[in-house]
């Protein structure tokens, strides 16, 4: 069975590296036994490895883990008080600060941080087992970063939920139809344009598409996108410029290939631009849609509203 093969491979690598990793982890100080630590490593390794993962890759993976933070997190998840003390000293304040940066408002930040803290501390299930979110930390990223990510996830989930509710309310309040009227039958040019555009976009590497989405759909600044991807701001600016040119060129070429004259193709793009302005918000088939309203107005609403 592939899974047993994989886990056997993981096991052997873990055994190999256990001494070194155990030393790095400092489990002894936080009440984690060597055996439990080895078991944790195996679990983490199994999640990571596929059948095709070579031993070298596994070794590199284990060596790149932050075993000290992993040990701390797991010890906390198991309820070790000494581990919790360390965790509190190191992270409680940072958690609150990160929450503040995310929620941008004091009471919301506190609530966010406290909720997460409760999740981390764990609750007892009916069967008496302690379930803590920290058990899902695997040491791939820093614990601090992981905490920030989890905070952000919580925030986004909550925020999106309330926002969707809000937008519905607002719709009925203001009597505005957000559902655009049934479109006129799409002229063939549009279909071709759509197709060609899809193709052009699909050809782009994932990073380029992410940059485009972040810039045009999320409205992020160049600096934010640059930070997201770990590059310089000017790189993003240049990339966007180049993409705009390339896409335009490719769409035109594609339309021409499909039988339009160059002039027609250009017109198709222009015309489409004007038309699309109206139903840009409509028919969002993305799994999660960008905000319908500016964040500020919605935020104000969220604060005033229930909860």
């Amino acid at each position, binding site marked *: 069975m592939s899974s047993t093969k994989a886990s056997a491979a993981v096991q052997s690598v873990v055994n190999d590296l256990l001494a070194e990793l155990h030393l790095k982890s400092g489990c002894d100080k936080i009440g984690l036994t060597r055996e439990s630590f080895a078991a944790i490593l195996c679990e983490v390794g199994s999640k990571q490895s596929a059948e095709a993962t070579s031993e070298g890759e596994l070794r590199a993976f284990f060596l790149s883990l932050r075993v000290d933070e992993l040990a701390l997190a797991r010890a906390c998840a198991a309820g070790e008080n000494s581990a919790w003390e360390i965790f509190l000293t190191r992270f409680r304040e940072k958690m609150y600060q990160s929450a503040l940066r995310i929620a941008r408002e004091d009471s919301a930040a506190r609530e966010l941080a406290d909720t997460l803290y409760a999740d981390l501390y764990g609750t007892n299930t009916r069967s008496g087992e302690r379930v803590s979110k920290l058990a899902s930390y695997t040491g791939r990223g820093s614990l*601090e970063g992981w905490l920030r990510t989890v905070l952000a996830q919580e925030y986004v989930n909550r925020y999106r939920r309330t926002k969707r509710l809000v937008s519905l309310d607002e719709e009925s309040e203001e009597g505005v139809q957000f559902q655009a009227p049934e479109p006129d039958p799409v002229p063939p040019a549009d279909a071709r344009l759509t197709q060609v555009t899809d193709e052009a*976009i699909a050809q782009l590497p994932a990073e380029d598409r992410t940059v485009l989405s972040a810039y045009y759909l999320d409205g992020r600044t160049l600096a934010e996108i640059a930070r997201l991807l770990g590059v*310089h701001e000017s790189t993003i600016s240049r990339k966007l410029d180049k993409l705009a040119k390339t896409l335009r060129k490719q769409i035109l070429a594609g339309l021409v290939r499909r039988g339009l004259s160059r002039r027609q193709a250009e017109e198709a793009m222009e015309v489409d631009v004007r038309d699309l302005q109206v139903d840009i918000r409509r028919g969002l088939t993305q799994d999660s849609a960008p905000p319908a309203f500016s964040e500020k107005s919605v935020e104000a609403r969220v604060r005033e509203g229930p909860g």
Partner: protein
Amino acid sequence: MEKVPQVVRERLKAGVPVSTHPDAEVLTAFAERSLPERERTSVLEHLARCHDCRDIVALALPETEAVQTVAIQARPRWMTWPAFRWGFAMAGVAIVALGVLQYQRRTQPTASMVAQRTSAPQPYPQSPPAAETVPAPAPSIAKQEADHSVVSAMSTKRASPLGLDREATMERPQAASPNPSGNARSAFGGPVRYGPSQPNLAQQQQQQQSPARVLPFAAAPAGKQQAGGVGYGRGGIPPASESVEVQSPALTVSTEAKITASGAAATAPSAPAQQLFDDLASPAVGKAKAPITVPGRRLAASANTPQPPPVPAAPSNPRWSISSTGSLQRSFDQGATWQDVNVSSAAAENFTAYSANQVVVLEKSRARQADADKKTALKAIAAPVFRAVTAAGSDVWAGGSNGALYHSVDAGDHWVRVVPVSAGATLSGDVVAMQFSDSQHGTVTTSNGGVWVTSDDGQTWQKQ
């Protein structure tokens, strides 16, 4: 900047619905740039279509250096300032009062005074008294006035050789004396009976003979009590009492000064106070200088012109930046002024001194790498053009052209050149970005696409 056609935006939105969102682990590793290439691409695939996850990653990013909110220890100037003044005022008062007391006690070596003080008498070297002195009447407790006048008579004769060069030193104590005498009383609490008489005495003295004041100051620390020998031809008790008195007020003074000084939490006030203590505690030492006056003057001067205390115990961490020409800069005043930081000379020193430790190696023998890295280091000894700097407290990393990567643990005073090596490959290209999520874990990105990760504060590195 040219915009993409609108249709592109439309179609971007209309992507294939995303399946499962990557979990927090993966997103964190992505944000910290420690994902292997394959996984990074697949996360990007998801991010290209998932607005929520893009938001999450953006929110979860650590703060940049530009908005570094390092909690700089606010120098409690407002707090130390009045305490500082108080410390000095008290110390100044103490000094003057002590001087006056000294002056007085020398004329009244009594058994009662001895009884008051219980500390062991210090050896009190007496110069041959008889030869130099004017015969003095038997001092008694009650005859303060007489004694003082006697002493002043004595001192007049005696002090003339000293008077000239001591004249200047008298001004300060005189200025300070009228006020503090009342305070001195409260400060010391001890020789109460001298308290009220002090001001009158002092003023009388000063009116009569200006050099009179010289005596106490010259006498107290100076072991050679030539004048001191005067009233004490008898020897025995007087020296003991005198030395005893010197000591206890000294102790009191120093304690007072020390307490207030430590309350001020500044090094400056304690220095003169310490000196005072040292001086007073060693009257036997033949210091010819006038230590009391000097610190007194210094302290009094300081009391009048308040200066902020010097660098507090804990240096605040500077902000870091890179100038437009690529030089590394730091600011200790939240960006008001910037100083260039030179890494090369310091690094060169460090490198040659600690070459073996500095080399960062993964799975290679250090000896072998040391040579290779020395060469690299020598190549880059000329000041590098920096492109990225990151700091967490006083732990600073700076990277720039030609693989220049420098690390400092003392906020930029000393630097160590770090050359990441992993599986035979050395970091090359320009360092364009660095991210250190904490003091141990960090990622360095280079211009040729290399991503180097460390989890032990730069001791070992792994190339992604």
